[in-house]
C-alpha cells in the first residue's frame, strides 16, 4: 500500500517536474476561432461563401466590415470606381499555420522574454518566434507578437504603388524594390537566431531601390533599426540625380511618404520602435479580411481606389488601441486589428488629434512558399484610404514580380554606404 502511494507520488512529482520544465511544449500557436466559434462561422459561410458582394448587398455583411470600407463599396463613384462599381467575394475561413522554424522558436522561447514596465524587452536579441503564445488580454504582449513577425528573416518584394486621386480617377506611380533582413530574431535561415558580426546591434535592415517616380530612378536608401528600443533608426539615401549619400533625418516619423497617405510609421501599418506607443486591448472583432488570395485574380484600372474581385474571409481579430506617448503626435490614436494566427495588422483605423476618423488601411496577406520550401504568410498588398480628403493608394507586391520569402541573396553587406554607391 505504502509502495503504491510512493509510486503514485513519484509519478505525480515527475509529471509536475516535466510540466514545469517544459512549459512551452504545452502551448500551441493561437487560432482565430475555437471549435465552437468556427462551427458558427461555417454555418454562416453556407450562405455567403462564394457570393459576390457589391453595393446591392453589402449591408448584409456590413457587421463584418469597418464603416469606411462599407462606404467605399456603397459609394463607388466617390472612390473612383469603374462603371461596374466595386465588388469582392466571400471565401471560407482557413487557418494559417506558421512555418515549422517559427513554431519551434516560439515554443523554445516561450516565457523567456523579460518584459520591462516600459514595454521594452531586455533580452530581445536572444529571442525568436512568437514570444507570447497566449498573450491573454495584455495588449503589450500582442504588440510584441506583431513585432516579432519576421517575414521569413529575409523578404524581398517589388512594391508597385499607385497613389490615387479618386476624384478625377488619376494616379501617380511609385515602383520600388524592397529587401528586408533580420539580424536577430531569425527563425528560418541559418544562422539562427542571430547573425554574427553585429557589433552595432542592428535588429532589422530595410533596403529600398526606387524605379518610379522617374526622377528618383535608381535612387537607393536603407534604414537600420537597432535592438536597443530607445535608439533612433539610422538611414542613408543615395540620390542618383545628385549622386550624393545623404544621411536622413529619422526622428520625424510623421512626415508623409512622397505623395501617399502614409507616414514613415505606417509601413506594415506600424513601423517604429514599439515602445513609442501605449497599448490597450479592446477585445475581439470579427472582420472580413483578405488572407489567402492576394491580388493575383483581381481587376483594377488606373484611378480605382479599391481593387475589384478580391476575396475576403471572416477572421476573429484582436483589437488593440495604440496611442503614441508623444502628446503632439500626428495621430490621436490607431486601432489595430491583429490576426491572431499571423499577428499581422490586417486593418487599422486612424484618428486625428481631434478624435475624428481619418484613415483606414488594410493589408492582404498570403501564405507563400519560401526559398527553403516552407509556407510563410506575408503581406502582399495594402490599400490606403484618407477619408477626410477622399484620397487613396495601393501597394502591391504582386504586380511586377512575386515576392521572395527567406531570400538568401539578401545579406548584411547591402546595408552599407559602399553598397549604396555601387552602379545599380
Amino acid at each position, binding site marked *: 500500500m505504502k509502495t503504491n502511494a510512493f509510486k503514485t507520488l513519484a509519478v505525480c512529482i515527475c509529471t509536475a517536474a516535466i510540466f514545469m520544465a517544459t512549459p512551452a511544449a504545452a502551448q500551441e500557436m493561437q487560432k482565430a476561432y475555437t471549435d465552437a466559434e468556427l462551427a458558427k462561422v461555417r454555418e454562416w459561410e453556407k450562405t455567403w461563401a462564394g457570393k459576390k458582394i457589391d453595393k446591392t448587398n453589402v449591408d448584409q455583411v456590413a457587421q463584418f466590415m469597418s464603416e469606411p470600407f462599407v462606404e467605399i463599396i456603397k459609394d463607388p463613384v466617390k472612390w473612383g470606381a469603374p462603371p461596374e462599381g466595386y465588388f469582392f467575394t466571400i471565401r471560407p475561413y482557413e487557418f494559417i499555420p506558421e512555418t515549422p522554424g517559427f513554431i519551434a522558436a516560439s515554443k523554445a522561447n516561450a516565457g523567456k522574454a523579460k518584459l520591462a514596465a516600459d514595454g521594452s524587452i531586455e533580452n530581445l536579441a536572444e529571442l525568436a518566434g512568437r514570444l507570447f503564445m497566449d498573450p491573454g488580454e495584455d495588449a503589450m504582449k500582442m504588440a510584441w507578437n506583431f513585432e516579432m513577425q519576421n517575414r521569413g528573416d529575409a523578404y524581398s518584394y517589388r512594391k508597385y504603388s499607385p497613389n490615387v486621386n479618386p476624384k478625377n*480617377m488619376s494616379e*501617380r506611380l511609385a515602383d520600388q524594390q524592397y529587401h528586408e533582413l533580420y539580424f536577430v530574431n531569425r527563425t528560418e535561415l541559418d544562422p539562427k537566431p542571430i547573425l554574427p558580426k553585429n557589433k552595432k546591434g542592428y535588429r532589422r535592415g530595410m533596403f529600398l531601390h526606387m524605379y518610379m517616380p*522617374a526622377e528618383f*530612378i535608381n535612387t537607393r536608401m536603407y534604414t537600420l533599426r537597432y535592438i536597443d528600443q530607445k535608439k*533612433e533608426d539610422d538611414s542613408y539615401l543615395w540620390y542618383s540625380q545628385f*549622386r550624393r549619400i545623404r544621411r536622413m*533625418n529619422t526622428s520625424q516619423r510623421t512626415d508623409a511618404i*512622397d505623395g501617399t497617405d502614409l507616414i514613415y510609421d505606417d509601413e506594415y501599418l506600424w513601423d517604429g520602435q514599439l515602445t513609442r506607443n501605449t497599448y490597450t486591448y479592446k477585445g475581439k472583432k470579427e472582420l472580413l479580411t483578405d488572407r489567402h488570395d492576394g491580388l493575383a485574380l483581381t481587376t483594377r484600372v488606373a484611378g480605382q481606389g479599391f481593387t475589384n474581385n478580391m476575396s475576403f474571409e471572416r477572421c476573429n481579430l484582436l483589437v488593440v488601441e495604440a496611442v503614441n506617448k508623444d502628446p503632439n503626435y500626428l495621430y490621436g490614436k490607431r486601432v489595430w486589428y491583429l490576426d491572431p494566427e499571423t499577428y499581422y495588422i490586417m486593418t487599422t483605423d486612424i484618428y486625428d488629434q481631434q478624435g475624428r476618423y481619418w484613415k483606414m488601411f488594410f493589408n492582404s496577406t498570403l501564405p507563400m512558399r519560401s526559398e527553403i520550401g516552407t509556407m510563410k504568410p506575408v503581406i502582399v498588398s495594402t490599400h490606403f484610404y484618407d477619408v477626410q480628403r477622399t484620397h487613396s493608394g495601393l501597394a502591391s507586391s504582386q504586380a*511586377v514580380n512575386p515576392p521572395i520569402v527567406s531570400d538568401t541573396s539578401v545579406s548584411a553587406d547591402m546595408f552599407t554606404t559602399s553598397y549604396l554607391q555601387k552602379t545599380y
Partner: protein
Amino acid sequence: MVRSLFCTLTLVMLALFLAIPATSHAEIDLMDGKLILSGFVKSTNYYRLNGYDREFKTGTGGLDNHKSHWDFSNFSAYIEGLYTIKDDQESTIRIFGGFKAWYMATPDYDSEVGDSMYSKDRRGYRAPDEFDDLVSELYLDYINGPWQVRTGKQIVIWGQLDMSRVADVVNPLDLRWGVPGIDTWEEVKQGLWMIRTFYQSQLPGNLLFEFILNPGYFASFKLPYEGTHWGSESFKYKNIANRENGFFSWMQNKWFKDEPQTWDLDNYEIGGRVQGYTWNIDWTFLIWNALQDAPGNVNVTEAVAFNGDYFMGPQPKYSDYDTVYRYKRYTTIGGTAQTFTNFLNTVWRLEWFYENDSPVCLGLGGNTSNLYDNDRADILGIALQGNWNIEIPWVTRVIGTGKQASLNFTYFRETVLNYDKDMCLVDRNYRQGKDNAESYSLFFMQQMFNASWTLVFIGNYYPQLHKWMAVPSFTYVFADSGHFSGLRADLGAKFYGGGKHKYNRENMVSNAYAQKRSLILRLRYEF
C-alpha cells in the same frame, strides 16, 4: 553630321518609347534584363525679363545681339545603359554608358544671337561638336568580394552639399547649358577617363578606401559662350572692325588653345578617399593632386599684348602669340562629415578643403586688368550645412497633404592663409582687399497636393559683394494614368542682384548673371 547623329539618337529613343509600353516601369529592360536603359528628354527655355539690357535693341553702346527675349531654347536628351556581362556569387562584370546630346534652337529663331558668336563657339553651342561631348560616362565595372574596379570615363562626386563644390574636386564642370542645382550632374560635369578602385575593409569604422588614377586625360572647365544665356554679355563693339570673337570669346578660346593636350602622361591626376563611420559621424578624408581645370597662371607679357591687341589694329591671330594661359598642378586635401542630432532634429553636414600652393595671378589691387606676376596661395575653405524637415502650420497639412518642407541652409567661408592684396581672387567671389570670401545658401522644397506639385526655392547671398540669387520654381508631375505619363513641367523664375554694386565694379567681377533675370519654362520626359 552631328545634327544627323542627334536626330538619329532621338528617333531611336522615340522608337523605343513606342515599342515598349512604359506604363509600369521607369526603365526599359532588354535582353532578359541584361541591358537596362533609362534617361530623359528635356526642353528648357528661358525668357529674359531685362527689358532695358544693352544686349537688346533698347540698350545702348552698339552691343545688342538679341532680337528675342527667348534667349535660351535647348532640346536635350540623356540615355544611360547598364549591360551585365556576368553576375554571380563570385564576381560581377558590367558596362555602364551614359550618352547625352542637345540641340540649341535659339540661333534658329534669333539670328542675331548666332551671328554675334564666334563660328567655333556657335557650332559647339548648337549641337555636340566632338565625340567626347556625347559620352558622359563609359566604364567597365568589376566587383569581386571587397574589391571594385571601374575603368573608363566616369563622373565622381565627392561632395555632399547641394550646390557648393567644397570637397567635390575631381571632375571639371561644363556650364555652357546649365548649372548645378538646376541640371543633373550628368549634364554639368565632364567625365574623366580614369581607373577607380574601391576596397571595403573590415577595419573599425567600416573604412572604405577609394583610389583614383587618371593616367593623362585632360578636360578643362567649360565656361558658357559669350553672348549666350549663361555667358557673359556679348562684348564685340561694332566699331571694332573685323573681329570674329567677342572679347571674352577671344580670351576663352585662347584658354582652350593653351590647355594641355587631351592625352599626355604629364596630365596625370591621382588621389584617393577614405570613408568611415566613427562616433555617429559619417566622415570622409580625401587627397587629390591634379592640374588646374582653368588657368590660374599667365604669361604676363604675352597676356598684356594678347588682350590689348584685341582693341586695336587689324584682326589679331592666335598664332601670333606664345602661351598666355598656364594650367598648373596643385594638391587639395579635404573631407566631409555628416551626422544627425536630436538637438533641433538636424542633419549636419560639414565639408572642408585645403588647397596647397594653388596658382593665382597677381594684379595691382587684385585687379585682373593690371596683371604683373603669378603666385601661389594656400586656401582653406569650410562649409557647414543644416538640414531640417519643417512642419508649417496649415501648409503642411492642407497644401503639403502631410509632407513636411525640407530646408537646407549652408554657410561657406574660405580664407587665403598667405594673403597678398594683389592676389586676383575675383573669380572666387572675394572682395578687393579681403583675405576671405563668404556665402550663404538656401534650399527649400515643399511637395504639394500629394506630390503632384513641388515648390523649390534656391537662393544664395555673398555678403561681402552684396550679390544674390533667388530661383523659385514650381514643378507639376503629370499623372501616370493619363496620356502624359512621365512628363514633368517646370515653371519658375531666376532673379539676380548686386551685380552692379561698387565692390563688383572695383573688382571687375563679371556681372553676367545680374542681367539674366528670366522666366524658366521646362518640359521633361523621364523614362
